[in-house]
């Protein structure tokens, strides 16, 4: 008879570090940690040696020095005596501005193109695939340059608007498209305009409250209130009434030709327009594909089941198809927004003063603080990206299919 014995429980041997799965991962991690530390130490040592050789150091006090350059397109007060930090703030706001504008218009283009690409109309569907393919396969930098060239080389100069029979005229007498940018009327907030604005905000709240009330009533009693016309009425009427009651406090300042340029109104510079429009149509092509995929992802059975339950076509769309399609569309849509924000850094190619052009461009070149500027620049984009992905993760969790 043989006796089963446990294998001898040997004490710890060095070879177990490699051969025993209990210790092997520890060994590998220790090696990885060691290599990481060595690599970082090596790079840091090189960095310090190189900096010392050139008599440089890492310091951020240059941000307080006067910047000494002008920025045309700005949302906050800034002049050439302001500090580099202030110039960076102008840049950050400009980045956010163009990203925000481009997100809205890109969604608009993308949704329209995506829906039309599924159209029964052969010609329209072909035209939209053509749009999507053209824009997805050509670098966005080339599109930005093309549109910037249209804005600066094709649009008439302000002096073309001069004279009795000018070569160019203003659109509706209010919008002027020139090679220096587009001039649009600016609102003038007179006394009492605050009341109008407050009324408008209150009516927006009112619309939401009314719709919620209608839904609750529907669920509680089954009574269906009309929502379309009342919403429109609540949205517009009080504001218009208040506008006239207060004696029309808000007026428009139209751009006018004076001297060699337009005066008054708001000037939207050619770089901003080029960047905004190029990012919109470029990203719009990508969003169109997302929208198409989202709509096609909802199976036909869902539409048919909804019809079988007796829902009308627009209710089928609103209650059955759209909620399911949006679940598929929104995550890639948000990452497209992220792409827009990152691609807005191409502003430097057309001279739009975003954060890359101010902090990473002129400030870097003037102060020679390459490492500090690039690190700050990366920090800014990282903050934006990580916060957007955090929002996206929360959303994904909330819409994820609840499975067993």
């Amino acid at each position, binding site marked *: 008879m043989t006796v089963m014995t446990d294998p001898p429980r040997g004490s710890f041997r060095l070879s177990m570090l490699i051969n025993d799965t209990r210790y092997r991962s520890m060994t590998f*991690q220790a090696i990885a940690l060691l290599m990481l530390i060595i690599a970082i130490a090596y790079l840091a040592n090189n960095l310090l040696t190189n900096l010392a050789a050139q008599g440089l150091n890492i310091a951020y006090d240059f941000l307080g020095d006067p910047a000494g350059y002008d920025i045309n397109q700005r949302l906050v007060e800034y002049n050439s005596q302001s500090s580099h930090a202030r110039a960076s703030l102008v840049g950050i706001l400009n980045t956010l501005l163009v990203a925000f504008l481009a997100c809205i218009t890109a969604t608009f283009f993308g949704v329209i193109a995506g829906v039309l690409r599924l159209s029964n109309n052969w010609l329209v569907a072909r035209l939209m695939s053509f749009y999507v393919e053209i824009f997805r396969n050509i670098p966005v930098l080339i599109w930005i340059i093309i549109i910037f060239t249209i804005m600066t080389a094709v649009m008439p100069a302000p002096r073309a608007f001069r004279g009795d029979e000018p070569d160019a005229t203003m659109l509706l007498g209010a919008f002027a498209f020139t090679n220096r940018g587009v001039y649009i009327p600016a609102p003038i907030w007179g006394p009492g305009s605050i009341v109008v604005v407050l009324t408008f905000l209150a009516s927006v709240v009112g619309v939401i409250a009314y719709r919620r009330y209608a839904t609750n009533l529907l669920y509680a009693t089954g009574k269906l209130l009309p929502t379309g016309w009342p919403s429109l009425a609540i949205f517009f009427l009080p504001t218009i009434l208040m506008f006239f009651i207060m004696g029309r406090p808000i007026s428009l300042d139209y751009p006018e030709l004076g001297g060699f340029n337009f005066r008054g109104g708001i000037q939207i510079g050619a770089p901003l327009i080029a960047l905004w429009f190029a990012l919109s149509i470029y990203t719009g092509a990508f969003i169109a594909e997302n929208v198409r995929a989202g709509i096609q992802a909802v199976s036909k059975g869902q539409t048919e089941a909804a019809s079988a339950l007796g829902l009308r076509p627009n209710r089928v769309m609103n209650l059955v198809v759209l909620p399911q399609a949006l679940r598929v569309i929104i995550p890639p849509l948000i990452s497209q927004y992220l792409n827009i924000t990152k691609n807005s850094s191409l502003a430097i190619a057309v001279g739009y003063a975003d954060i890359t052009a101010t902090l990473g461009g002129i400030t870097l070149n003037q102060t020679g603080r390459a490492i500090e500027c690039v690190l700050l620049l990366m920090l800014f984009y990282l903050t934006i990206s990580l916060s957007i992905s955090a929002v996206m993760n929360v959303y994904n969790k909330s819409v994820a299919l609840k499975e067993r």
Partner: protein
Amino acid sequence: MSDTHEHSVSFVRTESIAERDPPYAASGPVKWMRDNLFATPANSVLTLVSLYFIYLILTATLPWILNGLWNTSSLAECRQVLDGAVGACFSVLTERWNQLLFGFQYPNELYWRPTLALVLFFVAAAPVLFFDLPRKLLIFTALYPFIAYYLIWGGALAVPFVALGGCIAGGFIYQRFVAGSFALGFFGGVVAALVFWYVGGMLIPENANGTAMMTAVPSRDLGGFMLNMMLGVTCVSLSIPLGIALALGRQSSMPLIKWICVVFIEFIRGVPLITLLFVASVMLAYFFPPESQVDLFLRVVIMITMFSAAYIAEVIRGGLAALPKGQYEAADSLGLDYPQAMRLIILPQALKISIPGIVNVAVGLFKDTTLVSVISMFDLVGMIRGPILASTEWNGVYWELLGFAALLFFVVCYGISQYSQWLERRLATDHR
């Protein structure tokens, strides 16, 4: 039989009448147009608007293209010949053709070298792209990087030979030891290659480039579309292995490895490529040893490779996550260790799923190589915006040049995406 019906007229037709064509509006092009273009009033309006739109575009571009001039020497001469008529000045393309393709500093008499490298590139890429070709061709693919390096940069023949020798030494060690342990084979191979390169590098004489058979061309002389192609091809091919390693690292059960990979990937994906190119142009030099002179091309390649590796890692991670858990468990129950399971079971399937995503990243990356013009490298866009548009002859020829650049990128990118769709159909093993 009675003869009641003898004189009655037969009312059943004895022969069939000829088939009639369907109504005019229910077949052929008319029906197609009714169904597809004018189904509803709204549809008809859309069709008419689209037709008008197409008409506008064609009337704007066709005369311009058809009237184009191909052989004048400057924009002024173009305008003189056209004499006010609408027409493109394509002569800028013919006159500056070599500059657009090779940059303005690459020596004229050496243009045959990059051209030959491009032709050989198609030969080298063919067996990778099309599986039906004989597998022996892959040997040429493996040799291609060294041949292409020698053709484009020239210089001492010893450089590509030492590089190749190191790879062969590493591969030999790997083959020798991989049966025992993957880790031993892999790291042994890497060490062997490094040692070979180090020793070989010391053997190459200092002034080897001066006496070389092929004239050496420094990296800063590269330019034009060649630069875009080189950056695209090099960075994509380098970033696929790196991306696989990062994706596996991110899935690893070892927390330290996992966190290194997560931080790297999220950091790279969180910043725009332009900031990474800034790093390459102004910052990366600080991290190299003081006496080393790493040229801008190599620094840009490093940063773009890291950039695309992070994106490819995410694509491959998706592929790994999409595999059914049973595949992992099956590999474990067969007694395969981690490297074997990955090499033989998991990665072949995961990579197949990831192909469309990888191609997307590759196309995006190829488009993004135009960004190097921002850090004053003269790629295609940099050439157009810099030397060509700034020259006195061609100042103002925007549309011909930008249109040409757009067309070039469109052809390449559209070609790649069509190939990817073909490959997807080809690799589909599910029965649908």
